[in-house]
């Protein structure tokens, strides 16, 4: 009998160990595929940005987008992951954060750590997404290397500091103010939009965008279909992004990033309802497929802070409101001389701000855990202001220094000719299509006067 009990105990222990390992591996698998799906966001940004460019800049735009991804990932390894772990309480370094330093035993293959690599990867993709948000706004005139430095600052330092503050179980915005932003409306989108606005103020509009009397020219995208497909790819990738925003607890209920109970079902309800609300809002406001898809993205971002708690029709309404307002914000900025080629400030900056605010307006009172404050309008407004400033100030300051040093923008005649002809060794459309080849002397920036030239 005693022997049988001993054997039974050994079997139970083996089963428990097996179940524990299965949970660990299922967790790895879940975030692996979230990360893979997030790559689709970059396929989308690539198509979106190239489509939004004029034909003379299409490959330069694509090159810039690819390199933003390529430079953010290693720099996020060098210092981004450590920033997230080190600064949840502000600017003092948290105890234990040395495990996130790039020479730590956790920062590489390790048979006793199945979590760090997969979470680092998911966060590295969030970082690359954040940098890509800025990329589209500045196309056709920013110097590639200036942008890469800005992308590294945004993707591997600024946003992740904001995430440490407001998207971390010990982040001071949550601990002190109950800030709630499960889908990173503020921590990713608002920060990226505000950073982008700071750059745009120093970068200035594309040549030909504004006439001497202040009237505005439409510098038309060379391929609206490519932009629309790109936006849909971004939406696909968002399901990976948002999946990465919930914590898989093997053998127990999901939790959001703050440790509050949540379900992936909640995310499913509200992501789709916010998305469709945004599309309809964009359609009602503009009838323009580019803006309809952009507003679909705004809809998700608008609902993102409360994806875990919204009643789905409310997520739809919040998404639709965001979709109606975002094109108005874009027009407001355009009329004030801010040339945002893809509406990134309106879509991400405004959408993120609206999402954070909506959480305070419509979901105050949700309890927190571990004695932290409940969700409140005050907490959300504090988060909005802090994260907006955190994005805007470095974006503006660094680009101002670059502008003063003369390294922010390409020379005027190069801009007029098109970046592809000067910087890219291949042609985007070498056969069968016409190539727009404006002259540098075109006073309108080569828009109306751009002449189709038969391919050689």
């Amino acid at each position, binding site marked *: 009998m005693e022997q049988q009990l001993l054997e039974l105990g050994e079997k139970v222990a083996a089963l428990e160990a097996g179940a524990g390992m299965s949970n660990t591996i299922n967790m790895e698998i879940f975030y692996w595929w979230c990360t893979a799906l997030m790559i689709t966001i970059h396929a989308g940004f690539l198509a979106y940005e190239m489509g939004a460019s004029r034909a003379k800049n299409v490959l330069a735009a694509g090159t810039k987008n690819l390199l933003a991804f390529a430079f953010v990932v*290693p720099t996020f390894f060098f210092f981004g992951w450590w920033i997230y772990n080190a600064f949840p309480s502000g600017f003092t370094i948290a105890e234990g954060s040395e495990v996130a330093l790039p*020479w730590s*035993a956790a920062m590489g293959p*390790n048979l*006793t750590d199945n979590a760090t690599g997969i979470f680092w990867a998911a966060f590295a993709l969030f970082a690359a997404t954040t940098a890509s948000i800025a990329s589209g706004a500045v196309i056709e005139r920013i110097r590639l290397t200036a942008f*890469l430095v800005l992308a590294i600052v945004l993707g591997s330092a600024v946003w992740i500091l904001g995430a440490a503050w407001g998207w971390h179980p010990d982040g001071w915005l949550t601990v002190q103010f109950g800030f709630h932003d499960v889908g990173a409306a503020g921590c990713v989108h608002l920060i990226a939009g505000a950073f982008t606005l700071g750059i745009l103020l120093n970068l200035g509009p594309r040549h030909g965008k504004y006439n001497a009397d202040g009237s505005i020219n439409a510098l038309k995208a060379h391929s609206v279909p490519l932009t629309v497909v790109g936006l849909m790819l971004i939406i696909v990738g968002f399901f990976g992004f948002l999946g990465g925003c919930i914590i898989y607890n093997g053998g127990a209920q999901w939790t959001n990033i703050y440790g509050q109970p949540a379900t992936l079902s909640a995310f499913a309800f509200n992501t789709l309802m916010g998305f469709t609300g945004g599309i309809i809002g964009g359609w009602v406001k503009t009838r323009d497929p580019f803006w309809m898809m952009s507003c679909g993205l705004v809809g998700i971002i608008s609902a993102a802070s409360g994806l875990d708690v919204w009643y789905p029709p409310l997520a739809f309404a919040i998404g639709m409101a965001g979709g109606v307002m975002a094109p108005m914000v874009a027009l407001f900025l355009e009329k004030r001389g801010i040339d945002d080629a893809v509406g990134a400030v309106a879509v991400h900056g405004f959408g993120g701000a609206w999402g954070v605010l909506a959480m305070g307006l419509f979901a105050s009172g949700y309890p927190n855990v571990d004695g932290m404050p409940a969700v409140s309008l005050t907490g959300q407004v504090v988060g909005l202001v802090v994260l907006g400033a955190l994005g805007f100030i470095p974006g503006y300051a660094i680009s101002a220094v670059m502008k003063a040093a003369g390294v922010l923008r390409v*020379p005027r*005649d190069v801009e007029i000719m098109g970046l592809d002809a*000067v910087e890219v060794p291949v042609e985007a459309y070498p056969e069968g299509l016409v190539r727009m080849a404006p002259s540098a002397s075109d006073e309108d920036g080569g828009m109306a006067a751009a002449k189709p030239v038969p391919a050689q």
Partner: protein
Amino acid sequence: MNSSPLTSWDGAEAYFTFAGSGLGTGFWLLVAVVLVAGSIWYGTRHEARDFAKWHKTHPHG
């Protein structure tokens, strides 16, 4: 180059190349940092050269 920190898989923890060797990981981390920074520096020079070449071949734009 023997970069393995292991002689057996029994009880293995961190097993990446040069794990546990401050010199080895430090060196390759430095190499990676230099490659990233150097690529941006090289890109800056390349970009400036492209612009200069364009101005030379198209003096009037």
